């Protein structure tokens, strides 16, 4: 815990760094993603505009639709895999991440659904290859909001809407199986039809 506090001086306080493998279990290739949750965001409209015109190179995601860190990381790993094999469907890693989260193969629908909305007051910011935290730090300055512990994500999740989007309405799931189901759905997308 002391360790974390020490780190927080250089990287934006509550962001977290995760390791990815573009080809799972091939340890020679590595990628990373840094994620930070922001709440009490007041400039979503402006942020959306900046993402669209390329001023911000980060994925800004609606936290209410992300059923836990694992789901986001599974999508992120798909993203770096597609990138490594030149199979991205979108123009940037950040957009690809948002697309990867979606069960739909319609790119613009996916970006609208999972990207932040004008009314969003919370967002998940994700940046690839930002080991040092400098990119997140820069991004942090542009977000008028409060960096928040990732643990808070659970409070923001809208399970009902998630079920609707991933078409998981009728069966009963526990937390683990719901997250597994969502991940299966994401993976399946590239093989549908």
């Amino acid at each position, binding site marked *: 815990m002391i360790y974390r506090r020490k*780190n927080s001086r*250089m*990287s934006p306080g509550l962001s*977290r*760094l*995760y*390791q990815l*493998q573009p*080809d*799972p*279990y091939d*340890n020679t290739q590595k990628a*990373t993603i840094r994620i930070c949750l922001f709440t009490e965001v007041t400039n979503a409209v402006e942020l959306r505009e900046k993402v669209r015109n390329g001023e911000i190179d980060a994925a800004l995601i609606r936290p209410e639709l992300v059923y836990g*860190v*694992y789901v986001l*990381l*599974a999508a992120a*790993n*798909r993203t770096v*895999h597609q990138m490594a*094999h030149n199979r991205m469907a979108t123009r940037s890693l950040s957009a690809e991440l948002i697309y990867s989260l979606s069960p739909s193969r319609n790119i613009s629908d996916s970006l609208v659904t999972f990207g932040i909305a004008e009314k969003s007051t919370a967002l998940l910011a994700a940046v690839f290859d930002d*080991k*040092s*935290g*400098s990119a997140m730090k820069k991004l942090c300055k542009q977000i008028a909001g409060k960096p928040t512990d990732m643990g808070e994500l659970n409070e923001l999740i809208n399970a009902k809407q998630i079920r609707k989007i991933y*078409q998981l309405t*009728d*069966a009963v799931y526990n937390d683990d*199986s719901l997250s*597994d*189901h969502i*991940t*299966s*759905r994401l*993976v*399946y997308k*590239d*093989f*549908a039809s």
Partner: protein
Amino acid sequence: MDVDMNDETAEEKYEEGFGFEMDRKPMSQGAEARIFKSMYLGKPSIIKQRFAKKYRHSTLDERLNKHRVRAEVKGIMKAKQVGVETPALYFVDGERNEIVMERVEGCSAKEWIEKIRKENDEKEFKDNLSSFGILLGTKVGKLHAASVVHGDLTTSNVLLRDGNPQQIVLIDFGLCSQMKITAEEKGVDLYVLERAIASTHHDSEQLFKSVLEGYEKSGGKGAKGALEKLEEVRMRGRKRDMIG
């Protein structure tokens, strides 16, 4: 300056509990694929790796492997959608023909049957077997009703989560087919299971009888046709035409 230094020691700062690991030795190896135990982003998983077979023409081999990975992914997902439990998919590498999926802890139906044969007296054994059979039949019926034929139903391809016979997880959908499924194909699917049971478990006629019972209950409109076809297939074997 400060940033660069931190980059060097970044290794330690990854969040724990989301790592990748993979056993060097396969936990099982079949004719089609090798299975390795692994961790995927911190979740217990397995890797199913379909390897190239040297005895097949390379073009054919590649096509078959690709087709089976695809069939497996689609079969697993479709089964989930109709309420038949299958392992969760975590990652698929279409190039290398690898699927990373959930590691289901428990045992296979095959192991379970032989275990209860030892532990139960004859009546208990039969009762347990038939209630399990009915449930399995229901699952197969659901699949068939959704136009999915598993293609390789055996008691080894039926897992029991935590060893619980109420929690059936079907695996190995590499040979499954979907859409435009005929009663004939469903009949063959059942026949394969019947043969598999007869050859792996002695004195287990009860099991398949119960499977059919459950199947009839859940199989919907097509179930009757499939059962009739099963009779036909039984008479002549799995292959349709034997006319020289």
